[in-house]
């Protein structure tokens, strides 16, 4: 099997529209997710093995001759549609919670930037953009954000939130979000967990094929209530960013959103 390195990905991205012939098999390996799409007349057969390693760097696409044995599969009737397949990256369908490397204290009146890498999902669509299936490249653990009576179910990021971009490792199937936390309280703010509103963010890709999301600003005001604002436009730290997909939840960019908690 040919594995495309991150450098080579600059020329051959694993996502986009792939025109496959009848009776051919397209094979993608995205982080740990292994995906085979077999093209039959009027039918696509999608075989997959879920990803298990959050740090998996693999990202490849090739046409293969053989299918794996005994893996989970779905059959999709596509009728007389074109054989072109759209494979596109998406951000997670739930908020993602990440922990800073160490408990971080934000001094009153100060702010701090965090960079968090979250796993992408893959949307498999027909050429006319009918979504057939969505698969996570890595399925993170569930976590609960808030108290036991009325919190919210989120994904737990296996990777830490770093205060310097240089410490973040860009992986083929993960997107980086910059979160700025501003403390306007009269006391210091202790941060143990950060919540990234992934479904509300747009996904971008930069010149090096690294994925980014919009920047997020969380402000803790004098009333001790955190408010979140999603920066309009592409991420400032990305080089020549291009929009890949908009937010899953529309309209989040238009106004500041005040949820119960974004920090703990």
């Amino acid at each position: 099997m040919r594995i495309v390195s991150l450098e080579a990905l600059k020329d051959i991205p694993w996502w986009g529209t792939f025109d496959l012939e009848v009776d051919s098999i397209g094979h993608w390996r995205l982080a740990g997710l292994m995906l085979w799409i077999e093209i039959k007349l009027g039918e696509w057969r999608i075989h997959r093995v879920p990803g298990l390693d959050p740090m998996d760097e693999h990202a490849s696409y090739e046409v293969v001759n053989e299918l794996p044995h005994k893996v989970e599969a779905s059959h999709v009737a596509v009728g007389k549609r074109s054989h072109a397949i759209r494979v596109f990256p998406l951000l997670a369908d739930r908020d993602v919670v990440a922990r800073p490397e160490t408990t971080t204290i934000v001094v009153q009146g100060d702010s701090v930037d965090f960079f968090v890498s979250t796993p992408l999902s893959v949307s498999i669509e027909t050429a006319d953009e009918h979504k057939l299936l969505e698969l996570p490249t890595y399925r993170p653990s569930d976590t609960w954000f808030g108290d036991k009576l009325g919190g919210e179910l989120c994904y737990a990021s296996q990777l830490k939130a770093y205060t310097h971009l240089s410490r973040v490792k860009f992986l083929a199937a993960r997107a980086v979000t910059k979160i700025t936390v501003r403390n306007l309280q009269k006391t210091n703010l202790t941060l143990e967990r950060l919540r990234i509103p992934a479904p509300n963010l747009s996904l971008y890709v930069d010149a090096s094929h690294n994925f980014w999301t919009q920047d997020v600003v969380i402000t803790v005001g004098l009333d001790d209530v955190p408010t979140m604002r999603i920066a309009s436009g592409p991420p400032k730290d990305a080089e020549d960013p291009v929009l890949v997909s908009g937010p899953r939840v529309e309209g989040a960019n238009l106004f500041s959103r005040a949820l119960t908690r974004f920090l703990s």
Partner: protein
Amino acid sequence: MQDILNEVTHYFSSKRMLGWGTSIALLVVGILVSRLLAFVVGRVAQHSTGPRQAVVIRRLAYYAFLLVAWSVVLQRLGFDLKVLLGAAGVLTVAVGFASQTSASNIISGLFLLGERPFVMGDFIQVDKIVGEVISIDLLSVRIRTYDNLAVRVPNETLLKTSFTNLTHFPIRRLDIHLGVSYHEDIEHVREVLMRVADANPLCLDEPSPVFLFNGFQESSLSVQFSVWGTRDDYWELLTSMYIAIKRAFDAEKIVIPYPQRTVHMSQAAEKPVFSVNEGD
């Protein structure tokens, strides 16, 4: 014969017929107005309570308004309401004695509707019955068990006894009780269990898993490992955790011991209690 005919004709004289006609018209209008008022009351109630409570309140309001309409009609027809109310009181006492259980269930049902300890779709445990609440009626609550049996629990029972709502809160703790061999390093057991929880996507990262060393049993070291999951994934979490723990223990050669008893043979016991001499 002529006398009877005259009497009937007199009874149904135009004035009396007019009175009956007016009363019937009043009753029809009363029924319609009662329905309208009950509908309005139900709508108002739905905003402040729930849909099921609103239905009950609407029915009660309808019967109350209808009772008033009937009273007006009967009074207009010349009936003495005091006598009727007296008779109704005696009848009520008689019916009340005969239907104590039903009345108790109805009142219990009203209390349950007001308290709302569960809603339709919740899973509750009453005594040894566990199932999904499929209807909350005035007399009873119907539960569908996991093996698809319908169980009717009288409201009075629910009000008198304690029951558990298994799905009231969005997340739930799963307690796994284990016994490991006395030869095991308990810290190693803890690390293995934490790794198992970490690898299971259904096991919540926060609230974090808890490891408790409960004490010493006859044949094993007693351990409790508690993890959290969402109420929807509870059974899948339970099964997947037990499977993963078994596999992890097998891989790490951690022994879950069978009940065992160690028997020490003393030196004295090696000698026979009775000796038989040769030739005897």
